[in-house]
């Protein structure tokens, strides 16, 4: 009988380890001045250094070092007073130099931690994930496998290499083993990557776009029999490229390993690939017989030895921690937990904050971004901010607050701006979307509505206030939604002696 997730966890305790690779958003590469533009034509961003041509010499990008130190500081790491680069030697065409310049036994940041808060049935729980190291290295080129049926490396006839990405600064963040997460292992893994991504975004050191590969996660997982205290053999699932996939990869590996162990087989220490469609993993390429990278200190680069002054300057520039910022904004805007989570999950916190900073009411800013604009964005599979700018939204909200637009009219303005009809004021002018604020015009509509429904009007005269709703609706219709409903109500009730 095969084990499902719950029964697997009754017998086995998972242990996690997470390796995250982050492409830094520097303008130039790690060791040369080539540009780092995403999506450029193949091999247009290469030079003798990143192609590994003989005689070329690397020089470290200062901003890459500073970004890495910032990451270390934000993760509560110690910054090493002395660190070095090493050559990791391997033959694989994704690195034209035949080695990757990386940090090995002397990384720049060590021993940090990150608190990961997850929502569970038993309330919110915080897991402290300890960080082993943060080190600098460089990204590899992109391979295109040609031939075979799958576009995969297996069965390919030959491969084509684009070295634009080779040499882009990459930071690797490695956790210590994360024990005792139990059934929450998938959520902790996901929560860790999400919290890390928030921090990296707040530091402005990376685009952190998982779908474009600027943030990639490798998930190490092993199981041990409950109570045995013996760590099991781990598998490493590579390049898991969304938060949801991180969670699914951990769940999938727990079930797969538990079933292997349960049927008396062994877990093989291997690299596995995550399959997006099924949530399963498959074995990856067989590595060179035992990894022997023959690391040695990179003779072409001198050590990085940040002094206390440099580190303190960087520490001073650290932004507010994302978790603290969230608490502060939630309080300032008086947002309930659930709405706050919705805003964070929709990744609209920054956008709402920017809108509020332009003077918009927080509640309105939140409800426009998460409501109407998100709805249209979802329909078109784009980001809300691709549709309309923060300043346009702030302007529209200001008009609502001033009573110059009703919600209904504002929706039309938003529609118009999204349809590229112009700025909010241009759309308002073109579509004549002004609130009818002229009382005499409203009174005309009210008289018309009453004439059309004299019985309803009588009910209101007799004290049945809720009956006025139908008349207000009729007036709104008559004015094409361009009246302020509150003002209509006021005028109508007064007119009917209420």
């Amino acid at each position, binding site marked *: 009988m095969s084990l499902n997730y719950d029964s697997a966890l009754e017998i086995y305790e998972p242990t996690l380890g997470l390796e995250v690779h982050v492409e830094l958003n520097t303008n130039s590469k790690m060791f040369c001045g080539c540009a780092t533009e995403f999506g450029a034509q193949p091999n247009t961003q290469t030079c003798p250094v990143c192609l590994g041509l003989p005689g070329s010499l690397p020089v470290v990008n200062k901003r890459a070092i500073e970004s890495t130190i910032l990451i270390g500081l934000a993760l509560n790491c110690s910054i090493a007073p002395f660190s070095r680069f090493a050559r990791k030697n391997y033959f694989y065409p994704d690195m034209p130099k035949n080695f990757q310049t990386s940090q090995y036994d002397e990384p720049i940041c060590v021993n940090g931690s990150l608190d990961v808060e997850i929502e569970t049935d038993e309330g919110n729980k915080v897991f402290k994930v300890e960080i082993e190291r943060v080190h600098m290295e460089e990204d590899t080129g992109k391979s295109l496998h040609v031939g075979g049926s799958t576009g995969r490396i297996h069965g390919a006839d030959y*491969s084509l290499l684009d070295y634009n990405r080779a040499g882009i600064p990459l930071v690797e963040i490695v956790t210590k083993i994360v024990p005792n997460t139990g059934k929450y292992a998938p959520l902790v893994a996901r929560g860790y990557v999400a919290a890390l991504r928030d921090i990296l975004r707040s530091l402005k050191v990376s685009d952190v776009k998982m779908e474009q590969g600027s943030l990639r996660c490798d998930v190490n997982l092993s199981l041990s029999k409950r109570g045995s205290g013996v760590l099991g053999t781990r598998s490493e699932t590579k390049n898991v490229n969304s938060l949801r996939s991180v969670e699914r990869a951990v769940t999938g590996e727990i079930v797969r390993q538990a079933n292997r162990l349960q049927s008396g087989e062994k877990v093989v220490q291997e690299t596995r690939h995550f399959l997006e469609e099924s949530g399963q993993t498959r074995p990856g390429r067989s590595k060179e017989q035992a990894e022997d990278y023959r690391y040695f200190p990179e003779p072409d680069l*001198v050590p990085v030895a940040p002094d206390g002054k440099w580190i303190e300057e960087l520490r001073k520039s650290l932004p507010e921690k994302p978790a603290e910022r969230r608490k502060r904004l939630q309080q300032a805007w008086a947002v309930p937990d659930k709405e706050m989570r919705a805003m964070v999950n929709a990744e609209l916190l920054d956008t709402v904050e920017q809108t509020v900073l332009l003077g918009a009411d927080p509640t309105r800013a939140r409800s426009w971004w998460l409501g109407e604009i998100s709805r249209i964005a979802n329909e078109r599979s784009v980001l809300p901010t691709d549709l309309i700018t923060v300043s346009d939204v702030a302007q529209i909200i200001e008009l609502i607050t001033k009573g110059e637009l009703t919600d209904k009219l504002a929706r039309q303005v938003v529609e118009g701006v999204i349809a590229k009809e112009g700025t909010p004021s241009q759309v308002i002018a073109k579509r004549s979307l002004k609130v009818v604020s002229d009382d005499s015009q409203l009174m005309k509509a009210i008289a018309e509505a009453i004439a059309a429904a004299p019985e309803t009007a009588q009910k209101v005269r007799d004290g049945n206030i809720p009956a006025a709703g139908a008349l207000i609706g009729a007036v709104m219709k008559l004015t094409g939604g361009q009246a302020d409903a509150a003002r209509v109500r006021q005028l109508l009730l007064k007119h009917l002696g209420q």
Partner: protein
Amino acid sequence: MAAISRDEVANLARLARISMSDAELDHLAGEMDVILGAVARVQEVAGADVPPTSHPLAVSNVTRDDVVTPSLTPEQALSGAPASSEQRFKVPKILGEE
């Protein structure tokens, strides 16, 4: 006792993708042993007050500003490649059939 065995030299050659005849291995194992022996003697001389070094110059923090400089054109980049296609370097099949 040799500092490096013939088998170790053969393994290094394999890792470095250098094909070597038996005669070359015999010859190189001997030569490398002499080199390693010399380095070992230097290590004996270095006392506790001499820190390990990876670089002959006592400098650190040599960096460049994050400024983009012109790259090669794709034609230049690919000019030395044995084969290219679709503006990319073309390399033989990476993995053998499993």
